[in-house]
């Protein structure tokens, strides 16, 4: 599978369904641009806080977008890796997860938004209906292909389940849940250089 886009979403805690005040994220994301807090080319901040269950506040980058996203009625950090142009799914996913975790770490360390995230669970989406239609067959292939990355992240006991199965028009997606509570920074480090990917 060589999708053009993959995304991962880590949810806020304690309750991702509780209302969140996203306006402070606008300032935070502008600061991330000014201070180049996250790697890669960051371009601008888009405010969608007026949209119910929408993209919230979006930090638009060249290769990656970071959104404090309210999609599905669950607040979280949605990290979207764009225009992968032939990269393997595992490499793309490893990179996306790592960037997402580093961004969480940066948001929590900054502290100004008061947002905390639970890195123990993540929803992964393959945002490319040509490469990955949302059906059983593609899901089986996806689960197989990403198993090593998820094992590297959460260990062998990771639980994996299909998400978005209720609507074939949505993107192919899965939910992975780890057992242990670890920090976002530690989890991100585990994905470096492909260690543990066996």
């Amino acid at each position, binding site marked *: 599978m060589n999708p053009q886009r993959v995304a991962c979403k880590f949810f806020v805690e304690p309750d991702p369904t509780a209302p969140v005040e996203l306006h402070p994220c606008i300032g935070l994301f502008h600061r991330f641009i000014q201070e180049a807090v996250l790697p890669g080319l960051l371009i601008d901040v888009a*405010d*969608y806080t007026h949209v119910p269950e929408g993209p919230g506040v979006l930090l638009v980058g060249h290769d990656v977008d970071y959104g404090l996203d309210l*999609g599905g009625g669950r607040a979280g950090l949605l990290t979207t890796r764009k225009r992968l142009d032939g990269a393997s799914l595992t490499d793309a996913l490893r990179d996306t997860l790592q960037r997402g975790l580093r961004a969480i770490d940066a948001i929590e360390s900054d502290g100004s938004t008061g947002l905390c995230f639970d890195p123990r669970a993540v929803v992964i989406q393959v945002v490319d209906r040509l490469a990955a*239609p949302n059906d059983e067959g593609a899901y089986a292939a996806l689960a197989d292909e990403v198993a090593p990355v998820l094992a590297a992240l959460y260990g062998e006991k990771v639980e994996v389940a299909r998400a978005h199965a209720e609507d074939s028009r949505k993107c192919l997606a899965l939910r992975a849940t780890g057992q242990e509570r670890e920090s976002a920074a530690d989890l991100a480090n585990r994905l470096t250089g492909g260690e543990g990917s066996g």
Partner: protein
Amino acid sequence: MIQGADRASREPQFMATTPSSTPSPSTWKEALAGQMDSGWESEIDDFESQSVLRSQGKLDEKVFAETRLRRGVYGQRYDNGKRHDGTAERPLAFEDRPTKGPDTLWDAPGMQRIKIPFGGVSPEQLEVLAALSEEYSDGILHVTTRQDFQLHYIHIGDTPDLMRRLAAVDITTREACGNSVRNITACPLAGVCKTEAFDISPYAEAMMRFLLGHPDVQDFGRKFKPAFSGCEHEACGLVQMHDAGYVSRVVDGKRGFKVVVGGGLGPVPHQAKVLSEFTPEEELLPQTQAVARVFARLGEKRNRGRARIKFLVAKIGIEEFRRLVEEERKILPKDERWTEFLKDMPRTGGDAVRDAASLVAGDRQEGFDAWLATNVKPQRQEGYSVVTLNLPLGDITADQTRALVDLARAYCGDNIRTTVEQNIVLRFVSDADLPEVHRRLDAIGLAAPGAETIVDVTSCPGTDTCKLGIAASRGLGAELRQRLAAKSASLPQAVTDLKIKISGCFNSCGQHHVADIGFYGNSRKIEGRTVPHFQVILGGQWTENAGSYGMAVGSVPSKAIPQAVDALTDAYAHGREGAEGFAAWVKRMGKRNVRELIKPFMAVPPYAEGPDFYADWSDVREFTIGDLGVGECAGEVVSLFGIEVVRAESEAFDAQVALDDGDYEAAEDLAFRAMLTAARALVRTEYIDVTEDPDDIVSEFRSRFFDNERFFDRFARGKFGQYLLDRHADPPADAGRDHAAARVEEAQLFIEAAHACEVRVSAELAAGGGVPIENPADA
């Protein structure tokens, strides 16, 4: 939504969103081969090849810019690779690649406009649009003020596939931009409205098919926007502000249209003039073709600021224009398509999927009554209603769109339309189903009440994504919407009924001229810092097809606009006489008195006391206009002069308003400023760093353009230039009516002369002569 018999063979397959054939196709081109109109398919292939050529540097950047704009692929803010991050302007380090247009970097995100003729869109099309928003954009579908959709943050490399996926569901982006016929808009109630003569949608659809790519519409100097309306007195299609407008009429049992031409918004708004009181239906297309030919032949080509058809009609007069169109009509070679569609009228409305039935008492969700009062309109067809989704700033998510599609399939079928108020309407909803429809809309966040009321604020993209944006129209729109919604229950009905429309600059894409309360973004320098402001425009008319435009009353800092709105609405609610409408109240009050109402909010506190005033809504960066780019509002890139001179026009317009209003001093001053702005625009074509000091501008203007007679024309010689020099040398001690009127006239003539001079100078430059631009940065 296009379901005519000729298109039945191209009915979208689910393939269009989810390919599943075996072996799996590896590209959308393969996956959708044969599912698109063959003409559209090969055009998209050509566009893709041109993109490849350009990306290899083998095609001229201007040629490519023209090609992509014609396909609705726009630039977006910061695509020149520079952005002020609040502390300093910084380069955006995109890879070094050939540009996609002058000063437009290849990898910079852009905007895709998607044409939706008369706003008609089907569930299948919405499904594809939702998928595209997720795969290529930011998950948001944005409804524009001309019934289109826009996707933002699009990479140029994704556009051919995006277009293919749209073409497979019978949507084209062709001529969504460029100097051509833009989307044909129409009243969203067409076909179900009680006051219409007949349903104009099939005519709008036929015209769109006829004109799309037609050779007679390829050579315009500027864009051409048609609109259809079912009746004259409602807002309907807003035909009076369009380049061409068509109002349905039945005379002696025969269908036809009242046709108007030469309207348009922009910095200098014009009301359309009547071309024909009754054009029979079979003459609709040939007459429009004749109009197009006259416009292509006689419309201004070089001077973009004068190229819309409104300037041609104003220049030669409607009688002469009519005569030319009639002459042209006589010599048009006959075309079967003129009348073919009448025999097999395109089907533009789907069938109701539920039986008509009355709304009965019963289980209703909280909020139903308020929603029913503002978002539901009874149709002409007994037992059915039109339901309006009050989209915040025209935005809807992919998830919401899919859920809406499910709801539509169950309750209204294909009967979905976008509106110029940036909403979506569902038609043919059975009244009995309204409680359930409300419940389901509420579950997906689409049951906000207050559609088409004061809370339903319209806004152009503004500084969020538009290169020409001066102030954050969307930021202000969101703020006003939220504040007004919070107190909507306590607002008097007269206030609830008002409309607010916001543009990020004077170009008026947000249609501020036709709102009760309109705003356009500008800025003011205060103690060396730039402060975002909005010019307040009051009393525009929405009904009578946008029958008159509002009046500028003064600029208020962005952050004080909510208070200014409160002051205006309070004063109106308490001061209106009987059932007096807002426009009539503004007129009766007069500009001076209305201005007094907003005056307390015009002051800007020093930075130390109110730093908040120095940043815009939805932003935390200190405000700057340094990010203003060169806009792509048409087929070619707008010159710096083009942008700056419209500012002069806007000032001249304000001067005229002040004069009409008896404010002579302001009129005189504004007219002088308009001349200065135009002179500066001209000077800046050669000397970019000229200051804003009137002495500098006049001195540079004199030495560069006046003393050497470059500003002179054959007949008037230096007369118009002299106006500026005289006024600068000798300001009037006390401007009375005559002085002011003369100055307003002079300003208009001076601006015309500046336009003409710029055309001559750029022609000289193109021919290899002329003066090189001095830019110390390049030195």
